[in-house]
């Protein structure tokens, strides 16, 4: 006789779910173990719309685990098709509008459901991949709250040195240099794909002083920011 747990959404709707399904949420699991589930568990942070989706997710995944367990017991090693099915189901599950997606993240975080949290966060990450900062802002309607000076500063940072000016530069795009700079002694810290490249250019010398990627970034950056005459 499967135990049922009552869950109450923020807008007053009542959901009856099997205990195994409810326990996909670590938060609820702890409440059940601490014996606080008596009259139903209120979830003031989760609307009925989102809660029904969360329950749907948990149900599907509990089913999948049970099926996998029984297959394992039956020594049937072909679990691949079932894995692919579940994956496809997950992909379909997160095909929702942004509002719902982020509400799911919040719910998964609050209810502590690791699988759902990972799935939803990965989905958002996939929306970010390969985009420029401006494209990312557009996708998520994020306001650029850097002042123009701050944006510049993130790209050009002055660290006072001894007798020469040292500048640390964060540069994100690859640009080709056109002319050699007439420069003072500079220390650049640039980012290539993976890391930061310190480099030193002495007066009058060209990009060859740098080594590795990003040499041209640096010079063009300095020209663009009027650091070099």
């Amino acid at each position, binding site marked *: 006789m499967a135990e049922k747990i009552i869950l109450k959404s923020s807008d007053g709707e009542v959901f009856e779910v099997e205990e195994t399904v409810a326990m996909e949420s670590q938060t609820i699991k702890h409440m059940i173990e601490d014996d606080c589930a008596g009259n139903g568990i209120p979830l003031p942070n989760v609307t009925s719309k989102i809660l029904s989706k969360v329950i749907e997710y948990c149900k599907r995944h509990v089913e999948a685990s049970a099926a996998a367990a029984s297959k394992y017991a039956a020594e049937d090693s072909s679990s691949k098709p079932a894995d692919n099915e579940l994956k496809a189901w997950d992909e379909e599950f997160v095909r929702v*509008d942004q509002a719902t997606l982020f509400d799911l993240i919040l719910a998964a975080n609050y209810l502590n459901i690791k699988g759902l949290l990972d799935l939803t966060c990965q989905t958002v990450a996939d929306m970010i991949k390969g*985009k420029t*900062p401006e494209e990312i802002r557009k996708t998520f309607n994020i306001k650029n709250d850097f002042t123009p000076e701050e944006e510049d500063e993130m790209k050009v940072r002055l660290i006072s040195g001894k007798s020469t000016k040292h500048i640390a530069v964060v540069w994100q795009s690859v640009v080709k240099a056109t002319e050699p700079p007439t420069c003072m002694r500079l220390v650049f810290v640039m980012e290539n794909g993976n*890391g930061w490249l310190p480099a030193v250019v002495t007066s009058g010398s060209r990009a060859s002083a740098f080594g590795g990627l990003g040499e041209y970034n640096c010079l063009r950056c300095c020209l663009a920011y009027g650091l070099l005459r």
Partner: protein
Amino acid sequence: MIPAAAISTASTGPARDHTADLPDECLALIFQSLGSGDRKRCSLVCRRWLAVEGQSRHRLALDARAALLEAAAVLFTRYDAVSKLALKCDRRSDSIGDEALALISLRCPNLTRLKLRACRAITECGMAALAKHCPNLRKLSCGSCTFGAKGVEVVLRGCALLEELSIKRLRGLSDASADPVGPGAAAASLRSVCLKELYNGQCFAPLIAGSPNLKILKLFRCSGDWDRLLEAIADGVPGIVEIHLEKLQVSDRGLAALSSCADLEVLHLVKTPECTDAGLATLADKCRLLRKIHIDGWKTNRIGDEGLMAVARRCPNLQELVLIGVNPTTLSLGLIASNCRNLERLALCGSETFGDAEMSCIAAKCVALKKLCIKGCPVSDQGMEALVEGCPKLVKVKVKKCRGVTPEFVDWLRGSRATLAVNLDLVSEIEQPDATLSESGILDNGNEQLPAMVDQIGSVELPSSSNGRSCPWRARMGFLAGRNFFASTFRRWSHGSSNPHHS
């Protein structure tokens, strides 16, 4: 992955920034799935993203040329939660020194993993600072540094949680002042030790012998006689599970010493021509739990059917067998196939004796085989035909540089057995046939590799490659230089002349 277009960005109300609703830890979780470039771009989206990205950046790779010192303070103000750090310098430049390392370690108190490459200006003082400020260090990997045994010792004394230690081309080990190095405070926690290309690597003998929880030991191309050392340490490391011996002066004596490690599961014996069938048999006799065996016999025929038959008789758990430059026949292969019912992955490279008879034998008897890879062997279409019916669990077969196997046949095989993935690489005119055999360990690019085809098996753990700055011309130069070195080394060994590196 879900294309962005599939997710509707047209919300039902006025457009709003939903990411603002997320707590920092959720935003950080999203950043975790992103690579370095994407994270960089995220940090430029808005102030909040800049802050969260910096705080949640745990992994950082820096070019450790001397100039890094000036930028370090700024960098680590932004990235204040780094736990995995790589500091890599190139060989031509001056690297950061003790001052920079001290500053960096001060700023990264939660450091768990550190990788140092060619940071030649760091001395034991810098390492002492590291040990002092980063007591939670779990993994240290250093290559081409010069801080000597003392530099390693201070870390072992200060970092009681150290689990993995990898030392490659460390200078300063043969100093008169270099005492043998013990495990220090890390004795109980050390799990894995890897020593590569060391002169007087024997100074780490007490380190190995004094770590009772050591599970993995890898010794690559270190000079000197290792038989004695293996005899000395074998008692100290009874729980050892994985051993790699490559291009070492080690013989059956050393293998006999290792046979007292009854828990041994993984054995890599690569280009150790003084190890023979007798040694392998002694080892197999006592180490019944062996499940992965890689042997590169370097075509010296010291290991062959006899040794493999001993393995077949004693090691029923064998899951993976890779033979390079070894010449087994149906005698041993048949026995392995019959006795090792769990054999899932088999690879043969450069076996002059692996022909159609051997292929048929494998096909008929290896009931559990999932992946098969054959390279540079005299097998032909005829032998391969056995795969239509044989090896019922076979999922993938790769054939490379086997002149007797034709593309037409492979197409036919694919048609006859739909669930089998067949990969055929033809002989290329340009490559020298021997190149692929001596490839392993010679490429001077810091990556330890067994021949590329082993990747197909997916079982060899290759160290993660560096930040993608590959230098093919350098690798080739290194390859050529290395090939001469090892050719001459082998001549020395086979002529029994004394090792010039005797200390």
